[in-house]
């Protein structure tokens, strides 16, 4: 029962803030809504018995990625010029509604197994074991990707020697 209440409250929060992310004229407010959305998704993870993933969501998404986006926004904008225009309005709505209808239709029409059994709670240990045994190669590849992106970001954003600014 409490799980159901939490689910509905959290999904309401997530969808409302996501609506604000895509619709808000003020991009700074959109960024703040994005963070609210991330925290709501973290709550969904906790509701799904994955508190570690929730904490990672808050740490990486809300604490780092969203702040990085806000940071980029603050560096590229004047102080009170936060208003944004948009294009392809009709096409966007059409594509989004079509996508939602197709997905929901598929989900509603399918037969789902496993939803009747008692879900298990994954600890951090099982995750660690998985990473160190089954998924070791992909784990290393992701580590390499992070390193590459770190260096790539440094190279891209670096000022050229002798450039104007």
């Amino acid at each position: 029962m409490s799980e159901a209440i939490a689910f509905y409250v959290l999904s309401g929060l997530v969808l409302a803030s996501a609506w604000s992310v895509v619709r808000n004229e003020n991009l700074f407010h959109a960024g703040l809504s994005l963070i609210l959305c991330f925290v709501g998704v973290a709550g969904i993870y906790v509701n799904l018995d994955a508190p570690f993933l929730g904490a990672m969501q808050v740490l990486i998404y809300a604490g780092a990625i969203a702040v990085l986006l806000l940071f980029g926004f603050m560096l590229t904008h004047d102080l009170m010029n936060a208003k944004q225009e948009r294009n392809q309005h009709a096409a966007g709505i059409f594509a989004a509604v079509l996508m939602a209808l197709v997905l929901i239709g598929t989900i509603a029409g399918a037969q789902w197994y496993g939803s009747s059994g008692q879900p298990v709670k994954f600890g951090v240990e099982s995750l660690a074991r998985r990473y160190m045994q089954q998924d070791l190669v992909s784990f290393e590849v992701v580590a390499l990707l992070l390193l590459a992106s770190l260096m790539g970001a440094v190279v891209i954003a670096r000022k050229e020697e002798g450039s104007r600014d």
Partner: protein
Amino acid sequence: MIGLPHYLILSALLFSLGLYGVLTRRNAIGVLMAVELMFNSVNINLMAFSHYMMDTAGLAFCIFVITVAAAEVTVGVALVLSVYRNRNLIDLDQVAELKG
């Protein structure tokens, strides 16, 4: 009782909202934000499957997705800043240099 379809529908709605944002936002940072929404919807999907199918694969994949999202945003924001610094542009429609 909340089952797997509830989470899947939530994630579908979130994905559609993200898609709408990607299509209509003109600001590069705004597009990145909408892409993050889509990543999150995928993550909810994965975690819901992982939970109800009693398999850690979804959880492990979620963490991968978060990591890749972090990498993507780092490079994305760096690109946006670089374009902004060199061309003083932030509107994606105007950044059409790479078009053939």
